[in-house]
């Protein structure tokens, strides 16, 4: 294992300290319990938004704390959901009296820990609503699985919900925007190589030199199938077909196209992939009216990418366009 770290046990704490040192204008970091909140503090009467989950997916979530997006982020250990305590502490730190929305990626651990946190926060008199993100079409959503995973679409949900909170929507309304965004969003990913969890010291899985994993999850969970490495145009087609099929995208639809890097893929490759995806959509008569390309929801040093499509209407477009000022996404401020 080759990593720019000290003791694997200290990675998250040290990274969070670094996030605090790097963005003092945007963020304040709390240690013990560990969470990251907006430097500006709670705004009375405005809904606050808290998200979190295992670390190793940076900039998710701390990189999206700031005006127009999250009020606080709660990073757990690498690939492990945080416990309820820091979630409750973050909730108390950002509540402005109008309630707190939890944006939770749909993994058993995240669901259970945020559930407990919500119970504890409600016991402290804070109103909490929760929205699950489950955009990953690689997993069948059936009684026979833990349900779809929340992956790159989380960024889109955090952005639109954040904008809704910023414009003064009620907790119910913000939650509705988040749910609607999630319902309009689908993602599928591919991995070329695995990430290495610091405390494990070994790659999470092994792929042959000519093999890729289609439908990878962001913890390196396997996906739909392993296929031989193909030209990226073919891989994009596979991912996009699954996404559009599930979303029921039709000619004339307006969409956000988001090509997300898994952390170890050069940006130049993400742009090559974006080119294909946007060409295919255009050929199908779909209008790509908003775009995002980059490493936003990563899986340590995994090489790979995911493709996310969100169906946009006027309101979601407006919320996507709204000013945002965070470490990883900034626009209009």
């Amino acid at each position, binding site marked *: 294992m080759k990593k720019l770290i000290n003791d694997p046990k200290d990675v998250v704490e040290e990274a969070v300290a670094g996030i605090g040192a790097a963005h003092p204008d945007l963020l304040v970091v709390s240690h013990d319990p560990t969470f990251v909140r907006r430097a500006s503090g709670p705004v009375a009467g405005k809904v606050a938004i808290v998200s979190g989950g295992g670390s190793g997916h940076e900039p998710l979530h701390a990189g999206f704390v700031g005006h127009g997006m999250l009020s606080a982020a709660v990073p757990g250990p690498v690939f*492990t959901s945080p416990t*309820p305590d820091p979630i409750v502490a973050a909730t108390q730190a950002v509540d402005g009296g109008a309630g707190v929305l939890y944006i939770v990626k749909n993994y058993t651990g995240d669901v*259970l820990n945020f*559930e407990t946190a919500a119970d504890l926060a409600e016991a402290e008199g804070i109103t909490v609503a929760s929205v699950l993100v489950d955009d990953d079409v690689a997993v069948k959503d059936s009684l026979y699985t*833990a349900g779809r995973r929340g992956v790159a679409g989380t960024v889109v949900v955090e952005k639109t919900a954040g904008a809704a909170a910023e414009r003064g929507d009620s907790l119910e309304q913000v939650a509705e925007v988040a749910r609607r965004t999630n319902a309009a969003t689908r993602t599928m990913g591919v991995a070329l190589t695995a990430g290495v969890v610091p405390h494990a010291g070994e790659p999470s899985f092994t792929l042959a030199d000519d093999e890729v994993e289609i439908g990878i999850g962001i*913890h390196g*969970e396997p*996906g739909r199938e392993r296929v031989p490495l193909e030209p990226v145009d073919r891989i994009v087609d596979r991912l996009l077909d699954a996404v559009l099929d599930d979303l029921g995208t039709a000619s004339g639809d307006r969409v956000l196209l988001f090509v997300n890097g898994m952390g170890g893929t050069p940006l130049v490759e993400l742009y090559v992939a974006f080119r294909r995806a946007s060409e295919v959509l255009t050929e199908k008569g779909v209008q790509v009216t908003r775009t995002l390309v980059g490493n936003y929801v990563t899986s340590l040093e995994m090489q790979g990418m995911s493709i996310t499509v969100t169906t946009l209407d006027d309101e979601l477009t407006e919320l996507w366009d709204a000013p945002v000022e965070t470490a990883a996404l900034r626009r209009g401020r």
Partner: protein
Amino acid sequence: MTLDSTWARRFVERAADTVSENRAALIELDREIGDGDHGENLERGFSAVRAKLASQPDDATPGALLKMVATTLISTVGGASGPLLGTAFLKGAGAIGDATEIDSAAVAAFVAAARDGAVLRGKAEVGDKTMIDAWTPASDAAKAAADAGGDPTSVLRAAADAAADGAASTEPLVARKGRASYLGERAVGHRDPGAQSSALILAAAADAADDVAAAAATTSGEA
């Protein structure tokens, strides 16, 4: 014969030891069909539990000690296993209440309540390839042993053995809950890490009872 807080303390120590010894093996199981953190998660939790043990009041009841385990696991483990095992210990401790001496029926009630707690939170059934595949047979075996008049030690041993079999029984299964459910058929042939760790923890409980019984025998022999 009954079990008291000496057993509960010994159980906690043994559980922390076994989790620590099996850290790498549990990581490996989880790496195969999950995300490779289960051993790390539990070790983080049980070392926190061990650290708190020393500061528990001398007169802490078994129920109080096991509740400390529960809240510590909930607040340190994270992931899926933290809330699930934590709730199991919480409900198990609740079943024991503030009794200072725990008889066979209470031991069986502890295991049953623990199982029910984990089911309540995780909604898994037997055969879903989760820790429930260890806890459910353990609970059944504990009840059977207690009903048959076994002492607390033998009730715990029955539970532990059944849990070990239950953990082994997860190997041929397709998972329907947790991270392994994403794998479909590819999970077949791998043991569920949470079932394995639950079996180890129940073995620690039985071993602790053995320790206590052995110590009692020595003491009475010497007396």
